[in-house]
């Protein structure tokens, strides 16, 4: 069985500070890894994904995540956050052999303050 642990339920930071949202997973098979973002009162949006190849993946708005197989981690980072990054962030894993079903972590609420 697969599981995802997001180690921090809430992360408050000041604007322009760096941030890291931690995600660890457990799985006995190869997985795909995802980060989704949910802005207040909106649906889930795909932020970035790791399927194969380069272990460092980037989003269009400055976030990046690195797949670390030995540590079973997929932490999300941004060197300088904006107020508009305030949202809930979900890490997820899927196994292609299970139809791509996503297993989500509990979410991390990122709160960016001026």
């Amino acid at each position, binding site marked *: 069985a697969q599981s995802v642990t997001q180690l921090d339920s809430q992360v408050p930071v000041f604007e322009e500070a760096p941030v890291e949202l931690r995600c660890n997973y457990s799985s006995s098979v190869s997985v795909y890894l995802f980060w989704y973002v949910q802005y207040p009162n909106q649906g889930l949006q795909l932020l970035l994904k790791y399927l194969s190849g380069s272990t460092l993946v980037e989003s269009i708005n400055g976030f990046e995540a690195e797949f670390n197989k030995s540590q079973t981690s997929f932490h999300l980072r941004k060197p300088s956050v904006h107020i508009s990054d305030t949202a809930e962030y979900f890490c997820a894993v899927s196994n292609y052999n299970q139809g791509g079903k996503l297993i989500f972590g509990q*979410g991390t609420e990122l709160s960016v303050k001026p």
Partner: protein
Amino acid sequence: GAGVSQSPSNKVTEKGKDVELRCDPISGHTALYWYRQSLGQGLEFLIYFQGNSAPDKSGLPSDRFSAERTGGSVSTLTIQRTQQEDSAVYLCASSPQSSSIYFGEGSWLTVV
């Protein structure tokens, strides 16, 4: 349409009534998923469709919950005899090849 469309966006129903939630996936996406998001429970997988068949319905919480998909497109999630604990946001998602999954805005269900 351009994205996954769900209706209704908001539904308030009385305990014991049946509700139907509709999902219109992205055109051409063969895989369709239903999830539930509620306080304290996070995001829970309910059911997965590949075409019109449901190879994985392991997340449906009880026999009051059912779902179908017709024509490889629209899906309906039905909750019979609703209970207050069914109050949640029901999210539908679709995928072309079971890699990237795209979510709709959700149907907010409140059972009073």
